[in-house]
């Protein structure tokens, strides 16, 4: 097997960006993707067909009071989870990086907002984000958005009235979806098929933006390649490659100077734990610890006005972050949350209006579906999940078809995070009442996004990697993706994943000889 400069495990948001940047700098890169090949022309507009994009690899065991919803939140195949992400791209706030210092809670990040700000700015220019930085009054410092804001359709106008009546503010939702043609990608048609994958490339999925750049540089993507082990030299302090198995079960060795794990927050620690007795790069004992998932506070309602709920983006149209900064000043609980207002909704699937009120059946359901098709409204709070060490990924006693132990996840929300979610739900109902909803109700807690499990930090005692995702114990082994987050904040993670990955890629290139020595 020919040695390559860099192996990247996973072709999602972090993997594709890393591959593009390293290959553009002249590095030979191979991506090993556990799932099948996905092409833009495979992205059928259907909530039923969309399920094909979700996790379909080795089963994942989940327990705890608030399971993290691995299948719904993870991807499988080219583009990974970001292929079906909704492209809501707000920034973390200044205080998200210093929760321990400011509130004596959780942990601090090893970097400040100012360290990551230039990378947020670079990414938004490269990829394109539609938004209005002046209307988004909560936004931390940063360059103006390069694209005008997304349009507001009837649903968001109706719901925004409720915010206004209660003295709360709204702004356009920052979306990595083109409001006009940008970077060779077309403007969105606002048809709400984001969850099924966007074949037009208006939404900045890996297939739309960074993977084509990587492929242009001859990055080799091998699909159906399930990495089973990271290989090290005899000292155990240097990664030398990986073992992977293809669809037929053949065991293949790929050698490399640098190994980058970008297989999301569950499979990265699973791979580390399976690669050495006690886990590779696990001097801290924290590989797998601090798994987090935002709690979605779901609010639904029916309005007399036409809401056209089929129009817009799946992530929503408007934003409110009045309950974000000053994490200790919430009515209930502790932390931050944001409202994503007026998601485009289909009739079916977990987030469809048909599933919003499961107590309805028979003729009442028929009546509801007819009304909801034109008068439904919804919004979702993305609620911070405080890191809890006991929320972890461990290896199961059960194994996959290759004989590798399955990932076993435990997740029970911190009591203050759960209280925060309850407070958000209640606030949402008050807003819908103020907006004039004739009926209003909440959904159950929905897990949204997966973070942690290989957190970054200052030392090998309190974290798995440094701020660049470089493992404390192994200089040429990196981790990329939301698994690095020491805290979750209350915003969608994909923009921050891009910013952190860009920062890491520059570090790797600037320190190449030191990294591989």
């Amino acid at each position: 097997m020919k040695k390559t400069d860099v192996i990247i495990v996973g072709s999602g948001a972090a993997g594709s960006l890393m591959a593009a940047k390293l290959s553009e700098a002249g590095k030979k890169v191979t991506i090993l993707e556990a799932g099948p090949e996905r092409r833009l022309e495979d992205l059928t507009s259907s909530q039923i067909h969309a399920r094909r994009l979700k996790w379909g690899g080795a089963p994942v065991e989940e327990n705890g009071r608030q399971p993290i919803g691995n299948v719904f939140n993870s991807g499988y195949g080219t583009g990974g989870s970001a292929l079906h992400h909704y492209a809501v791209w707000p920034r973390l706030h200044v205080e998200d990086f210093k929760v321990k210092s400011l509130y004596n809670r959780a942990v601090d990040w090893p970097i400040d907002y100012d360290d990551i700000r230039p990378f947020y700015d670079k990414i938004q220019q490269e990829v394109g984000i539609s938004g209005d930085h002046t209307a988004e009054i909560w936004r931390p410092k940063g360059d103006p958005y390069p694209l005008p804001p997304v349009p507001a359709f009837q649903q968001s106008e109706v719901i925004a009235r409720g915010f206004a009546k209660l003295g709360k503010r709204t702004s356009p939702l920052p979306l990595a979806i083109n409001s006009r043609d940008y970077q060779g990608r077309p403007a969105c048609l606002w048809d709400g098929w984001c969850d099924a994958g966007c074949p037009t490339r208006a939404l900045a999925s890996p297939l739309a933006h960074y993977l084509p750049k990587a492929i242009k540089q001859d990055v080799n993507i091998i699909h159906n390649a399930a990495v089973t082990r990271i290989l090290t030299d005899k000292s155990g302090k240097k990664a030398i490659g990986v073992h992977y198995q293809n669809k037929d079960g053949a065991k293949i060795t790929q050698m490399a100077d640098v190994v980058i794990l970008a297989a999301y927050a569950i499979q990265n620690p699973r791979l580390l734990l399976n690669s050495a007795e006690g886990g590779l790069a696990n001097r801290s004992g924290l590989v797998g610890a601090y798994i987090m998932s935002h709690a979605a506070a779901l609010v639904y309602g029916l309005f007399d006005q036409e809401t056209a709920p089929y129009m817009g983006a799946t992530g929503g149209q408007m934003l409110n972050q009045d309950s974000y900064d000053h994490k200790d000043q919430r009515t209930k609980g502790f932390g931050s949350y944001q409202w994503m207002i007026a998601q485009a909704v289909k009739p079916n699937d977990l987030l469809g209006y048909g599933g919003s009120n499961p107590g309805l059946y028979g003729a009442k359901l028929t009546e509801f579906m007819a009304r909801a098709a034109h008068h439904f409204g919804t919004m979702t709070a993305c609620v911070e999940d405080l890191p809890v060490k006991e929320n972890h990924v461990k290896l199961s006693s059960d194994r996959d078809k290759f004989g590798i132990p399955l990932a076993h996840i435990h997740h029970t929300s911190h009591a203050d995070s759960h209280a925060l979610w309850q407070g958000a739900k209640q606030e949402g109902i008050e807003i819908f009442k103020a907006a004039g909803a004739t009926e209003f109700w909440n959904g159950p807690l929905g897990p949204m996004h997966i973070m942690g499990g290989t957190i970054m930090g200052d030392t090998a005692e309190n974290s798995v990697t440094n701020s660049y995702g470089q493992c404390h114990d192994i200089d040429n082994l990196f981790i990329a993706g939301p698994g690095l987050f020491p805290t979750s904040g209350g915003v969608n993670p994909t923009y921050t994943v891009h910013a952190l990955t860009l920062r890491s890629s520059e570090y790797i290139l600037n320190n190449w000889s030191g990294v591989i020595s």
Partner: protein
Amino acid sequence: MPFRSLNQKQVSALDFLSDAIVPGAKSSGLSHFIDHQLSAPNEDNLLILRYLRMNPPFKNFYTSALKAFERSVRLKYNKSPFDLSEAEISEFISIMMQKNPAGWPETGQVPPPAPLFYFVLRSDAIDVTYGTMSSFDSMDIPYMAHIAPSHPWKAPS
């Protein structure tokens, strides 16, 4: 279209119950949808059960629950599910969405809890009754497909 995973008795029970929960499910092909997915390779399975921390194969989930459904109905009403009046099947559904009805096995070969089966079957039925291009038309909402599905639930060949 012949069934590959379900027998006729199971299909009849599935059609009957799903149509009572989501009117129109039977004529929309609910039993064919489920039968097709149960016959597909695990990684191509498109049932909503994928999202609910259940790992395929899913056949036993449905067949054991259908058996429990018939057993519980017979215990409560002393007749076949197909002979229930509209009021009786509605009453039974209102029970099964909240708890296991009497007679729903809780030891031995345990079917899924009745409320979970209700939620899953309801979601499946909404998929085929409301989640297709033709159903969007009938609800007078635009489908706006970028790439239209060649079949409501079968993968393109």
